[in-house]
């Protein structure tokens, strides 16, 4: 991606590069965060189906955790999980 600083104002707030949404992590809104328990997880994928923001990480056909870059902390995954493998914890940051 080309060099570009937000302070360099372009006409109409134009950004002279593309794909800038990639740099914008929207997970900062959380007041609670989901904690996934790998041992309790039955790999039923209900959390993956229900997550409104595509923030359940999957690799090689298996749930491997939460994408905290984009998770908004809405708690739907914890609510839907039939195995109690996802619980909501206080605070926005998983390690905070």
């Amino acid at each position: 991606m080309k060099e570009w600083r937000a302070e360099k104002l372009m006409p109409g707030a134009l950004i002279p590069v593309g794909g800038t949404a990639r740099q914008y992590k929207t997970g900062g809104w959380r007041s609670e965060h989901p904690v996934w328990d790998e041992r309790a997880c039955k790999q039923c994928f209900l959390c993956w189906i229900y997550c409104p923001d595509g923030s359940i990480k999957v690799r090689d056909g298996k749930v491997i955790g939460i994408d905290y870059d984009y998770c908004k902390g809405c708690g739907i995954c914890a609510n839907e999980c039939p195995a109690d493998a996802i619980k909501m914890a206080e605070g926005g940051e998983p390690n905070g």
Partner: protein
Amino acid sequence: MAKLTEKIVAITGNAAVAQAMRQINPDVVAAYPITPQTDIAETFAEFVADGLVDTEYVTVESEHSAMSACVGASAAGARVMTATSSQGLALMWEILYIAAGMRLPITMTNVNRCLSAPINIHCDHSDSMGARDSGWIQIYSENAQEAYDNVIQAIRIAEHKSVLLPVMVNMDGFIVSHSIERVELLDDEVVKRFVGEYKPVYPLLDVENPVTHGPFDGLGGFYFEHKKAQIEAIERSRKVVLDVADEFKRISGREYGCFEPYRLDDAEVALVVLNSAAGTSKCVVDAMREEGYPVGILKLRVFRPFLARELSEALKHLKAVAILERATSPGSFGPLYAEIRSALYDLEARPKMVNLIYGLGGREFRPEHAKEAFGVCLKVAQTKRVEKPLGYLGLKEVEVIS
């Protein structure tokens, strides 16, 4: 419709604007083709169907969508035009601000017609006056010739690299839009050369050089700075409007400024008018001058940007000025009066000013109304007192039940 080659024709204001659009041959026109649209969009659609232009004509389901499609096409890198009127302009409101904020050089003709209620489709300036804060350059036209000339000049003003802003060309609904007048058309080739080829700076469709149009710029960002930059751009358009007018004079012989003084230099009282009322008022000026009255008019052509300094300079020698206004701001004065009066505030000596509302909902503006307005001015000049700052011309005597 046959291709027009005659230089002097008898056509309506709408047809004149459609001819200008045919000669400009824009890449995209997006319009909602049903009422309150005028036959500008209809006539231009015929040109598209007849293969007289290369334009992609997008018919949409509302004016909100029409302006949205214009924004998209302009960001993509196209030269974009449209036309609207009245409620149609009102429905575009949200997107007008986006077009200006994104600095997209869209050219739109607005046929000035009133806003409901009561339901009425006739001439007044409530539509464009309501859009005065949207960031669009606003140019007003006295007759069909001026509407034609202004549309051609608007392309150059909008696309000037120091401006990059949308331009709205206004003309009076029905009085000009639907009346047949003598119009001098320029040759197709002359217009084509004058508007030139549009070279967008950052077209969205240039996939080799990807850019982002219309991004989020929130609380911690630079929204404020972008608005300041937009203000500076419309300030720069003052010079561009005059430069383009100079160049236009060379191809047409017709002269344009930001406003037109008519027998104003040696006048003691004057009217400030927009659009077709200027023609009627000029006739009255001539007649009253014959009788020895020191009257004149100032016809405003460019309302945005607002030329505060130039207008105060042009009006400062007068004893009384009436701002004629075909719009209201209920609970306050008309927008034109408020701004012109404010422009003259810092003068040591300034004319007395009154605001006269006329012609709402298409009520006719007749010579006797201009004469009545001059009468008000002459009385104010004589007594040096404004008894009623806000008055009305041409109201019917009726019983109003509150």
